[in-house]
């Protein structure tokens, strides 16, 4: 065996270990916590606007409109923050193999979050609040799908589900954004987290 072949094999071993570790250490808890936060946000939103349509926010006084936006920004920051904390914890446990997967996840999600933020600003400027949720669903789904390309099927399925639901919400039900937010960012995340947890528990018991 020569050096080139040895390097190729070492690279392949590393790739498989990263891929496997990303799957086995993929934590279910942050998805569940994120889902619960989203559901709480949806409940609070409904209490504020008394409608499933985000467009109703524009009927609120300006101070409450800012409060509404700040609440969702806060939920987003807390949800992403706790996700990063969990991933960092996993990366510290397995620094040799988790560093790159953690980076891939962050790099895959960042462009989508930036795009969604820019589109959101434009939609807010044009008073088109009803399209904010489906846009975020599709952008987030695209990011999760991209990150999932380096892992197993489950995150990719989550990404596809977000994109499909976002597209349906955008094209057919823009006046039901709150329902779609609860179904996707809330229930879909919780279901995903529970499946991951169940799989980890199954592995631990065997």
């Amino acid at each position, binding site marked *: *065996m020569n*050096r080139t072949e040895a390097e190729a*094999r070492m690279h*392949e071993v590393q790739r*498989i270990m990263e891929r496997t570790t990303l799957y*086995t250490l993929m934590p279910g808890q942050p998805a569940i916590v994120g889902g619960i936060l989203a559901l709480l946000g949806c409940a609070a939103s409904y209490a504020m606007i008394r409608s499933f349509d985000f467009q109703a926010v524009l009927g609120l006084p300006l101070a409450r409109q800012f409060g509404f936006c700040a609440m969702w920004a806060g939920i987003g920051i807390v949800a992403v923050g706790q996700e990063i904390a969990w991933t960092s914890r996993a990366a510290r446990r397995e620094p040799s193999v988790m560093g790159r997967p953690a980076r891939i996840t962050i790099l895959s999600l960042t462009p989508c979050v930036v795009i969604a933020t820019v589109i959101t600003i434009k939609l807010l400027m044009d008073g088109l609040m009803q399209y904010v949720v489906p846009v975020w669903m599709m952008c987030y789904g695209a990011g999760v799908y991209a990150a999932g390309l380096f892992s*197993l099927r489950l995150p990719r399925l989550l990404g596809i589900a977000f994109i499909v639901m976002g597209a349906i919400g955008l094209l057919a039900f823009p006046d039901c954004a709150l329902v779609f937010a609860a179904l996707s960012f809330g229930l879909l995340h919780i279901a995903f987290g529970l499946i991951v947890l169940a799989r980890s528990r199954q592995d631990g018991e065997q």
Partner: protein
Amino acid sequence: MKPIQPGKIDSIIHEPARLAIMSALAVAPEMTFKELRETLSLTDGNLSVHARTLEDAGYIAIHKTFEGRRPLTTMRLSRKGREAFRKYLDMLRSVIEHGESGDRDAD
């Protein structure tokens, strides 16, 4: 740590599909047949054949059980397998650092 015998390659691990199985099991405490198949993109037949070779060599333990009515096959790395995998990686590092390595152990 024992010194590595120069020029010795463990041909059981050296086969790419078997190396992939060993690599995956080295970082997961245990994986089901389905999980391994998905992770490594192997066919059922391929995975079965190579897993059996590794089991015969004592490198992995295969556990067959039932989940409800469905058969569930799980695999884990044995102590001997972990040691062999570590030696194989040491051999790779040695080749990367010092150059060529020759013969294979046995098939």
